[in-house]
């Protein structure tokens, strides 16, 4: 149901869902306000950006490096100040804040939460830890927004379902991310948050959704966390495997038998599949941080170190193997692994966003069923290959 608003520069009044009310609001409005219908919103919280001053413009960065303004992100507490407070505020932020306030009122009324107690915005009953991201539908639909959640997570923001009862203690503090946040906040040049979408390979993935919404939050065991993250590599390995497999099958007529056998043999090498995944290279100091920490761990464990200059994926896979094969020993190094697994979160998100792999479409294979007649096999083949060309 629609909610009607009126604002005189001092008080925001509203009517809808059978209720009416208002509260003092000093966020200056614009002569050219944004159209609420063109914006969507998302409820967030963070253990890293807890100050009222932590408001940012949010960009969405494409794989080609182009940036588009996605929206603005601000804590709900930012809406509670006096007129003097907003004097130097960005004009666009103020407009986004008005859209945000409207969305908050609408949601609170629709949930039957609003109750006049203080005569302030607090009567909407939202948690004071709530952070609101208002974004442009034109740049990102609600559906596409799911692909941005891992990147938000990597910045230290969690998507919350219940904006009225946020419990920050529920969310673990990642020490590595905390260091990064301090670095970010102390850098005056960092005024925006640049988010990225994950590759379409992960679009709609139930596992990815669960990973960033629940698993990484509730999972405190570093070994299981590492494995949960490693599943993303497994998903990509499967893609590489599938693409290669069809490539070989398609060209099998041009290959000799032994060569083909070797090629198929390569498909069973995880290390080689991972190499293919990491052809995109390493990007950023985070990879070097991981390598340094992994080296220290290996040294501490008296494990054979990798050759000097070995890339990130070698270290990542080595750690994975150690967990699989030496978990009983690894347990003595839980502290080191905790830090590594937290770093790994960032690197997995980076991989999900930067991977250039694509699933080869329309590749089919039909295996002859010797128990059936030639005619039946031909028919089945035609179905797989799709249409008359198969019958030639």
């Amino acid at each position, binding site marked *: 149901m629609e909610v*009607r608003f009126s604002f*005189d*520069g*001092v008080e925001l*009044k509203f*009517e*809808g*869902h*059978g*209720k*009416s*009310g*208002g*509260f*003092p609001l000093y966020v200056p409005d614009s002569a050219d306000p944004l159209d609420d219908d063109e914006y969507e919103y998302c409820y967030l919280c963070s253990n890293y950006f*807890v*100050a*009222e*001053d932590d408001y940012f413009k949010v960009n969405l960065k494409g794989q080609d490096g182009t940036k588009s303004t996605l929206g603005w992100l601000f*804590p709900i*507490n930012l809406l*509670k*100040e*006096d*007129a*003097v*407070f907003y004097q*130097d505020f960005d004009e666009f932020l103020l407009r986004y804040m008005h859209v945000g306030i409207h969305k908050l009122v609408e949601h609170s009324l629709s949930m039957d939460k609003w109750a*006049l*107690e*203080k*005569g*302030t915005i607090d009567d909407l009953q939202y948690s*004071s830890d709530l952070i609101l991201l208002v974004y442009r539908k034109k740049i990102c639909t609600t559906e596409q927004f799911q692909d941005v959640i891992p990147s938000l997570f990597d910045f230290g923001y969690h998507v919350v379902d219940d904006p009225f009862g946020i419990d920050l203690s529920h969310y673990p503090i990642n020490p590595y991310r905390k260091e990064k946040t301090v670095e970010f906040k102390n850098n005056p040049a960092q005024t925006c948050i640049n988010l990225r979408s994950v590759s379409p390979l992960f679009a709609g993935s139930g596992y990815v959704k669960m990973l960033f919404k629940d698993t990484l939050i509730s999972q405190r065991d570093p070994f299981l966390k590492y494995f949960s993250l490693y599943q993303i590599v497994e998903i990509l390995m499967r893609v590489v495997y599938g693409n290669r497999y069809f490539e070989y099958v398609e060209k099998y007529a041009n290959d000799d038998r032994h060569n083909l056998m070797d090629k198929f043999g390569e498909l069973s090498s995880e290390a080689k599949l991972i190499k293919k995944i990491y052809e995109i290279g390493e990007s950023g100091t985070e990879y070097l941080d991981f390598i340094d920490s992994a080296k220290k761990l290996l040294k501490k464990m008296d494990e054979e170190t990798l050759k000097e200059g070995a890339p990130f994926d070698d270290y990542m896979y080595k750690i994975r193997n150690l967990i699989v094969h030496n978990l009983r020993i690894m347990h003595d190094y839980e502290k080191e692994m905790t830090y590594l697994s937290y770093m790994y979160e960032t690197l997995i998100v980076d991989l999900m966003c930067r991977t250039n792999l694509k699933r080869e479409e329309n590749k089919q294979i039909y295996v002859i069923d010797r128990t059936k007649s030639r005619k039946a096999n031909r028919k089945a083949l035609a179905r797989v290959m799709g249409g008359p060309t198969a019958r030639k």
Partner: protein
Amino acid sequence: MEILANPIFDKKIGSYNVMTQMNVVEYMNLIRGSVKKNELQRPRVRSSKTIYANLKEDLKAGCLIPPIVLSLYSQYNGSVEDKAEIEKFILEHKDQLFILDGLQRTYTIQDLLDELGEEANVGTIIRVEVYLGLNREGVLYRMLTLNTGQTPMSLRHQIEIIYLDLLDNRNDYGLKFIRDNDNKPKDVDSFYFSEAIDAFTSFVSQDYLQITREKLLSTIESFDNLSKLKNEKDAFLDLINVYSQFIKKMNNILKGKDIKELMGDELREHFYGENTLSIFNRSQTMTGYAAAVARLIQDEVYDDIKDVAFGFDNLNEEDVTESIKKLLLCMDEIRRTAKKIGNAQRCYFYYYFKSLLDRENDETYMEPMKSVNKALQNYRRDQ
């Protein structure tokens, strides 16, 4: 109008309650003028159309709606047994009537009469309670206790009613109170009414944070009788007047100084304030001051608010400029780190004024620089 019984005296709020009944036309003639006149009555609630449409149908059908509760400021000095005199008194003072409970019902009755015009069924009877001689404090108390309905009035709204007369009338101190949306500038003796109210509620509740409905109600309930609250009306003016003197003092010392220039490279943007007025004549600073004064009175450092101003002549003026620079840096720290900047600033100013005005503390009394540092220390401890 028919007075149904002898008035009953409400000992809590010191007012007579008269139960009457009248038809809807009589009621509207009685109340129409005061509804139009009173700017603080709430607007009509359009979204509750269905409920009030049903109510309208009920009225047409002769259904008896719950009593409407009115109040009348003027004191009735006549005989409580003389119903005719009471009726005459109410009619003569009908412009002072205020709807405590039943505003939306009144709008519905108005609608009904507009709709039916001449054909209005004057036989539809309603019951109306009238409090006679109910002062503003009594109105507030009754509102807080009655106002639990579908569309209650905001707390700020209710507090404003008590002090509404200060908004437009002159006072002994020459203080001016302006509405937020009047677009008139603040000055050393001109304050936003809403911010002055904020400060006073902080004084009443001894808390620099925004007052809640529950907190106010319990504060009022804790008074032995409401006349005590009535005296607080003077306290309101005393509190703001002392503060006005403080701002004047600071303004004289800082006059002609460009605070932005003074800050140099130490602070380039996001100034809490750029001059005396923008630093001190705003809600956060005032609520901190008011809560601190309340605390000092509670601690028996002062007997009377007015005594606070006597110390202003002893202010260490040499320190003021440097202290303002430090204060702005503290405000910047708060801005960058606080979860709720406004509340954090209120907290800081509470400690600032508590140190600066505490005449029993030789170390910080009228020592602005020491008070700024002490406030920061206490603020950090609290976070």
